[in-house]
């Protein structure tokens, strides 16, 4: 346990700091923006696609190739769909200038 913490100290620091940054960022957002914000955050966790690309790039067995391909497709859906939907929502706010 202790050796695990010691080995990953850098990552653990990063996690703790990012928790605070995340909380700070959402602190005072008007409720009008809750939906776009949720949608934008939804697109950002699509970063999981990086993992699927790495898995796919190192895969040798057929089954991992198939699952990896599926993972890349799903991850891309999350990223592209997420950002495009958010942009469509926000486009409507912009007209109001």
């Amino acid at each position, binding site marked *: 346990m202790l050796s695990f913490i010691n080995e990953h100290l850098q990552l653990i620091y990063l996690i703790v700091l990012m928790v605070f940054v995340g909380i700070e960022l959402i602190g005072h957002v008007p409720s009008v923006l809750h*939906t776009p914000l949720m949608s934008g955050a939804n697109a950002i966790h699509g970063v999981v696609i990086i993992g699927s690309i790495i898995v796919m790039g190192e895969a040798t067995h057929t089954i991992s190739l198939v699952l990896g391909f599926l993972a890349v497709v799903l991850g891309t859906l999350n990223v592209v769909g997420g950002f495009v939907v958010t942009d469509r929502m926000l486009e409507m706010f912009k007209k109001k200038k």
Partner: protein
Amino acid sequence: MTLQITLQIIYLIASVTFILGLKFLGNPSTARKGNLIAAFGMGIAIFGTIFLYTDANGHHLKNLPLIFGGLAVGTVIGWLAAKKVQMTAMPEMVSLFNGMGGACAMLISIIEFQHIQSTFAEPMAIAALLIPGASAALKGRLLIILLGMIIGSISFSGSMIAYGKLSGKVKDKSFGFQQFINIGLLAVILAFTWMAMMGESNQEFWFYLVLALSLLYGILFVMPIGGADMPVVISLLNSFTGVAAAFGGFLYDNKVMLVGGILVGSAGTLLTIVMCKAMNRSLLNVLIGNFGGGGKAAAASSSAGFEGAIKEVNASDTAILMKYAKKVIIVPGYGLAVAQAQHVVHELETLLESEGVEVKYAIHPVAGRMPGHMNVLLAESNVSYDKLVEMEEINPEFATTDVVLVVGANDVVNPAAKTDPSSPIYGMPILDVEAAAHVIVNKRSMKAGYAGIENELFYKPKTSMLFGDAKKALNQLVSEIKALG
């Protein structure tokens, strides 16, 4: 080596764009830019990984054609789905995309587990395990894989149910002791996780059992939660997927996945709590409250007690009332979204304004299916931003208002939230439409609102019902007002 450092710098830049993106998304004037900045960061992180990533032995990624194929398929489908979806179906769409992210995290864990299993089978690997500490490191890795898979699959199956509920394909369902069963199931999942990690044999069996139970848990977790609370659930599942992505980051020692995942995890959790506050309910209450089931039971018992009769009104009488009013407040709800009546409501507003009537919109924080749903919808039809007034600001204004027009809203104007402690929405702040001189309620029928409870407002002497589809009724109203000259 240079490639590695270049990639790390790209990841650093991407991490900064995620933080800036979320920051800008919190302000109406910069929100769109924020989204684009984060999208740019995501793009460079993806292509940086494809071209620059090398493993411990310096090998580049293989299978590039397949990776690009997957990217292309996902991009085309995602783009089309996001562009084609109706504004009213936005919440379901977000839930669906969230589920895709969860499934992606789940698949990564499955593949990595299989990878560990196959290397385990080689004699060399077993010999390596005899080195002190190697076994513990492997177990740590297994735990991260398992946790990533559990959270990813809960998020996936939960989001699918949330999507089904919002699009009306899945009905609310709850049975006795469901909360205890859920808690029990969670305990079982954790116990089996321990078995999959520590067990000497049959690891595979325990692993896939945990996978199946996690998927089941996601379904049971969302199933009993009422449709009105779906935004909160989607927001919560959103932060789950963030955490699942962060586990992936831990697994690959990948900083950008970690930053992106944890940011969404913490920001999403806070957003969930903020949303609950807007409805004046606690998160625990939402998750355990059995909103749907309890509501229906309450409706049966309380609907008989209302005094007074329903008063119906036609479009021409409403038109006269509104045309000669000084001040009109429109309360939009989900009915307006379903009927796609956002354009005609704007037409009505401009028409009344040209007649010298002051028109405002009262926006309840949870009107529609998601916070901000109504704002997005009305913004689409060019309603001026400053006409959309939030609840706290508009409530004192109802007393000086001649006519309130409620379009397809129900629970957000239900006085039971104030007066009936047994009501499932008791304690939720509502719009005080009763303070106005006249209340016109446009609804398709007397059917109860999303919370499944009767609304006493409809039986009040001040209230008149204008039945019909929101778009048709408002169109009629517009032509009647025009006919009055």
